[in-house]
């Protein structure tokens, strides 16, 4: 899944660098609540560990072998911020020291594997293992499923990145300039390998390590277990400062994933007609049926006049270059959520600056 240089356009790379940088920034910021002196050696050694685990050549059912990503076990032991940073650092070393994965695509690789991988692993592990004891079998199963989902989510995001290249970038002759396959080819091609081999490798190694730690070193599983007896003094317990933001993130992610449901709903939303829709007879009959009032004979002139006042950047929730409507919905949702988060974070930042200084030392 390490994308080399040349598969993604520079603009895609720039967007993903920005996305990755946001992840790194917030991860570093959250970890700074813990003593920074402790974070530096912990993340470094853990990144080195992840690097070594990525090299394990695991035998898989069917006689093949596969490599794990190591992101799930890093997230389970260190929490999402620690997982994001240690896997990112391992990926940077792989790219800059061993030439695995490109330089221009480094942001994309970190975004897919470290950030998406870590957040999906964390979310699914916490949900499935919720309430189970440190030594329970459910925790092992949760870690395996989390590993499987994390790798496949990362692969899906990479496949979407590949798949939008031929839609967006062509030369004068119409030849795709970067990864050549559209979404309908890129997604199945990437997913077949990950749904089978890579996903299983990650699931297997994560479950194995969690089972081992349950027996040999259960304290290492405490920091993300969600159990109240969370020993705060442990060196590896890199807990974030607040839990409220995390719940928000989970809710946001769930809502984003549900967005394609919108296109399954039949008809148009009541009261959200455009002038052209209002002129249609079937829309008018539905208004009559629902509201029990006569439908307007013609499109109201005020609506007609104001309709062109504001055109959305993503008309009808689907950017023009996206062929699939469901994907367009998802992309629009991601854009909107990103925009809103940026807005709320900058507001928070502004208010903190203006507000009374709190002494938290």
């Amino acid at each position: 899944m390490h994308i080399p240089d040349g598969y993604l356009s520079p603009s895609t790379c720039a967007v993903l660098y920005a996305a990755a940088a946001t992840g790194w920034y917030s991860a570093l910021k959250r970890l700074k609540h813990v003593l920074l002196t402790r974070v530096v050696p912990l993340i470094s050694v853990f990144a080195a560990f992840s690097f070594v685990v990525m090299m394990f050549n695991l035998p898989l059912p069917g006689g093949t072998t596969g490599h794990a990503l190591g992101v799930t076990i890093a997230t389970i032991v260190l929490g999402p911020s620690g997982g994001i940073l240690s896997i990112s650092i391992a990926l940077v070393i792989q790219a800059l020291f061993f030439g695995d994965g490109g330089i221009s695509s480094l942001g994309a690789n970190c975004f897919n594997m470290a950030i998406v991988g870590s957040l999906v692993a964390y979310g699914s592990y916490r949900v499935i293992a919720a309430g189970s004891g440190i030594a329970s079998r459910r925790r092992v199963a949760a870690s395996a499923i989390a590993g499987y989902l994390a790798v496949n989510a990362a692969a899906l995001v990479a496949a979407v990145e590949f798949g939008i290249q031929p839609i967006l970038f062509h030369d004068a002759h119409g030849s795709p300039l970067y990864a050549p396959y559209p979404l309908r080819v890129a997604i199945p091609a990437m997913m077949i390998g990950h749904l089978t081999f890579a996903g299983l490798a990650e699931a297997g190694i994560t479950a194995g390590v969690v089972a081992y730690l349950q027996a040999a070193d259960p304290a290492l599983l405490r920091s993300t277990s969600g159990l109240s007896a969370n020993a705060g003094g442990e060196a590896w317990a890199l807990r974030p400062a607040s839990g409220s933001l995390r719940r928000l993130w989970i809710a946001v992610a769930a809502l984003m994933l549900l967005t394609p449901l919108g296109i399954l709903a039949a008809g148009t939303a009541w009261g959200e007609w455009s002038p052209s829709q209002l002129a249609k007879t079937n829309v008018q009959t539905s208004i009559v049926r629902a509201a029990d009032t006569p439908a307007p004979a013609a499109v109201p002139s005020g609506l007609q006049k104001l309709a062109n006042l504001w055109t959305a950047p993503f008309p009808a929730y689907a950017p023009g270059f996206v062929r699939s409507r469901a994907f367009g919905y998802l992309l629009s949702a991601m854009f909107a959520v990103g925009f809103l988060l940026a807005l709320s974070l900058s507001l928070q930042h502004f208010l903190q600056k203006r507000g009374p200084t709190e002494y938290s030392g």
Partner: protein
Amino acid sequence: MKRGFLESTVVGFARIITRAMISEETARQTGFLQALDPRVRVVGLFSLVLAVTLSKKISVVAALFVVAVAIAISSRVSLLVLAKRVWLVVLAFTAVIAVPAIFVTPGDEVASVGFLTITEQGLRTAVMLILRVETAVTFTTLLILCTPWSHVLKALRAFRLPKEVIAMLAMTHRYVFLLVETAGQMLESRRSRTVGILKPAEQRRMAARTAGVLLSKSIELSNEVYFAMQSRGFRGDVEILSDFRMGTWDYLGLLTFLLAASFAVWMGR
């Protein structure tokens, strides 16, 4: 004989260490890249990689590939090493992706083989992809081969990366080799105690246990490192010596790199 988990992983570890040693040897030689300030090397080669990805013309990417070979020769990088480590490997895995595109990309038909049609657009996109990846990876590998890791890190400071991140990258690099050696020894000792062939399920269990032991060791190691750092007065401030000096040749080199990259972007637009 088909290699199991133990053997193939140990071979992988050995390959990593060999690669690192080859890099260190090449970096010590005298040559064009080695004579330049590491910051110039990093900025210069990164800008060439960017030019490769920005170019829309096959001819321009091909010209950049020639530039990469010229830099390799003038920096005394063995073309055989490049061929084995980059060109053949990249060709093998990019061709798997690029070749089907020759047939499935819609466009003007140039020939047909049985039920498959070759399009001009398909040929162009396949050649472009292979050439682009080959050239970009060659530039990156030249940087890796001609610059010691510590210099790459110091040069990254020029990109305003936080000092903590540089410190983590430096420490990770050091402990990668320590942990590779530790894991290698664990697997070798297991191998020497193993008679017969292990079943895949047993191999998986062994891999997971090895990773688990390694994880506990890593946490312990990080504790020791932390205490060692603290006892030497580490308070969270990272100091990085910056003893690089830019000379006339370095400025000239930087100018040449940037001009070449800009020219390539302009020609390839």
